[in-house]
């Protein structure tokens, strides 16, 4: 393996590693704009220049590869390459490059949404000049829509071409290109081919400056007001890893989080903007009991008592409806509680989309179908006829479908019931038909594990605080158990789940961590 010396650090690297990668892996900070680990190298921004011993000029470190050299050409008889990243020449060169990049840049940080997480801002602060020597007027261009959700501010663009490479290599749709030459170059999309693919939102993330903006977040907030929590997207069964940015009780945006085993660096727009549908819902904050067609608030104790009374002695006559939108823990708790039959909602398939880069949007637009079947193996296929056969009169439903109509089959099932319990977070149509509503948590409030369609278990972390008196869904079900059978906390519950379903044994939040683990095998070690 070639021996590389960066500044004072001597490291062995793989043949063909770039200097930039080697430096970043070893904690040496080299500034860059056009380099992105998921995209082709172009070496166009010149920000990552370093000095390589034996080369007459500074080299772009993102495009300089380390390889083994014959013994007689080794530097100091030992190193295959010696690189300086912090000497005066390099620092001066960074200053010069920044001066060029800022020639036409408007420096409008106060109104720019990237401010606070902008590499141009950071590096200008670190390396740049305090004053510009450019006395001429700056080039000013109006903002343009590149697609329905993406706006470009040409003045801020530094032409790093990350966005064009993204549409060429990752989404494979090639909408964006560099229009015109030299001083007039700008990022553009053809009028009849706007940037409207389902990965478009990512270009706003990878733009190192505030040039590409998502209309969904533009002028909404400042990054330093937002708090960040890592979680998992719940809009399809791929389970892209995300960072949720929120302030108080409101989510402002979702960004993809790197996970090479799931989503790489990106996420799709269905998930990115999906959180909006949970806003402004008519939430259920306390248990509601229907008498004479009108819901009235009751206490948790009364609600649990009412349900226990219905269940007692007639355990075999209760049906439970689990949901692929709920966590493994919640589904497991309901599956274990119900002695009658377990069913689920009919499954909705959507279009499966796979991009040339391998990025996938699953046809199954629920996050946890696989996990649900894992922890509730006894789910029946035809709930309606089973209910008929077994003369079920009480049903307990985990509801999650805020915009779903109640179809004929469900209508038939519901009209037969003497007692319907719906565990929901919003006043859905199904919830309105219930006799008793128990307030659970909304998708971004939940904590638990979900299993994606590849069998990877991931930690779904709660982002927002609970609403009103609502409680975690597994905890509500826990209350319905007899005192001896209850779990003290979610960790105990996961242990219990592992005992019953060996593929989940040994699982803890701590082990799953940020990246999750595959079901087969690794959970135990």
């Amino acid at each position, binding site marked *: 393996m070639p021996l590389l010396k960066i500044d004072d650090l001597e490291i062995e690297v793989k043949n063909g590693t770039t200097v930039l990668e080697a430096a970043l892996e070893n904690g040496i900070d080299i500034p860059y704009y056009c380099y992105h680990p998921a995209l082709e190298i172009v070496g166009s921004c010149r920000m990552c220049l370093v000095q390589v011993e034996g080369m007459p000029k500074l080299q772009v470190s993102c495009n300089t590869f380390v390889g083994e050299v014959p013994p007689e050409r080794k530097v100091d008889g030992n190193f295959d390459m010696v690189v300086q990243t912090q000497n005066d020449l390099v620092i001066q060169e960074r200053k010069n490059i920044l001066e060029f990049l800022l020639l036409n840049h408007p420096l409008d*940080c*106060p*109104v720019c949404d990237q*401010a606070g997480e902008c590499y141009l801002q950071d590096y200008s602060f670190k390396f740049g000049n305090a004053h510009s020597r450019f006395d001429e007027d700056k080039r000013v261009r109006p903002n343009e829509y590149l697609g329905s959700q993406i706006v470009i501010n040409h003045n801020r663009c530094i032409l790093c071409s990350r966005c064009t490479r993204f549409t060429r290599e990752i989404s494979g749709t090639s909408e964006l290109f560099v229009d015109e030459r030299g001083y007039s170059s700008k990022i553009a999309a053809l009028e009849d081919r706007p940037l409207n693919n389902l990965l478009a939102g990512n270009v706003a993330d990878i733009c190192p400056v505030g040039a590409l903006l998502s209309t969904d977040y*533009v*002028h*909404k*907030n*400042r990054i*330093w*007001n937002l708090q960040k929590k890592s979680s998992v997207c719940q809009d399809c069964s791929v389970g892209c890893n995300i960072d949720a940015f929120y302030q108080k009780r409101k989510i402002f945006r979702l960004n993809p989080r790197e996970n090479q085993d799931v989503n790489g660096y990106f996420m799709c727009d269905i998930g990115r903007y999906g959180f909006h549908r949970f806003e402004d819902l008519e939430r259920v904050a306390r248990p509601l009991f229907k008498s004479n067609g009108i819901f009235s608030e009751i206490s948790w104790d009364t609600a649990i008592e009412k349900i226990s009374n219905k269940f007692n002695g007639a355990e075999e006559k209760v049906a439970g409806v689990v949901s692929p939108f709920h966590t493994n823990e919640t589904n497991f708790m309901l599956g274990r509680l119900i002695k009658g039959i377990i069913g689920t909602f009919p499954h909705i398939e959507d279009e499966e989309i796979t991009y040339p880069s391998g990025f996938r949007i699953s046809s199954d637009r629920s996050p946890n179908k696989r996990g649900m079947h894992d922890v509730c193996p006894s789910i029946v296929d035809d709930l309606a006829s089973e209910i008929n056969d077994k003369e079920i009169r009480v049903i307990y439903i985990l509801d999650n479908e805020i915009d779903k109509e109640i179809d004929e089959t469900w209508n038939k099932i519901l009209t037969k019931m003497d007692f319907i319990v719906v565990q929901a977070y919003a006043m859905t149509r199904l919830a309105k038909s219930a006799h008793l509503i128990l307030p659970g948590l909304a998708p971004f409030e939940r904590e638990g594990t979900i299993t994606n369609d590849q069998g990877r278990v991931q930690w779904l972390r709660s982002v927002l605080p609970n609403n009103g008196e609502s409680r975690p869904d597994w905890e509500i079900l826990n209350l319905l158990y007899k005192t001896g059978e209850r779990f003290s906390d979610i960790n105990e519950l996961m242990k219990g789940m592992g005992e019953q379903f060996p593929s989940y044994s040994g699982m803890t939040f701590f082990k799953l961590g940020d990246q999750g683990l595959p079901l087969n095998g690794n959970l135990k070690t």
Partner: protein
Amino acid sequence: MATIIKSYEPTFWDKLYIPALVQGLLVTFKHLLRKKVTIQYPEEKLIPPEGYRGLHRLNKDANGRIKCVACDMCSAACPADCIDIIPGSSPWDDGKERYPVSFEIDLLKCIFCGFCEMACPEEAIELTEIYDFSDYTREKLIIDKDGLLDVYDKTKDKNYYSNSQNLTIKE
């Protein structure tokens, strides 16, 4: 060990009281002829010295629009955390893209440090010399965007930035 403190025993001269009375009155008459230090507030008002930091105002630009671009710099700088801004895209399509949809300062929390005006990149927020803005409820002391713009209308002949010397940045 207890110490015995002898109490003061007034002499005959003291017991007359008249000398003390005269002494006291002398002080009164001396001040009667001097320049007064108190003023007849609220009929008369004290003019605070230059650089005094009182009630905030939000400045308007030449077109009469709010100058603030809702950059949140002031609220980030504010040590009392009393500025609450909701930004939005501006309704005007020339130049200014961003403006505050709502801008509130909790005057009860504010410590009148002036950090907000120091932080502002647009010279949009200033502390005026108005100091008498007490009120009867807490809610009324949360001043909103319109209130702050009204303060500007009342004080628009004054430029508090130019008064403040430490704002001139030396090159």
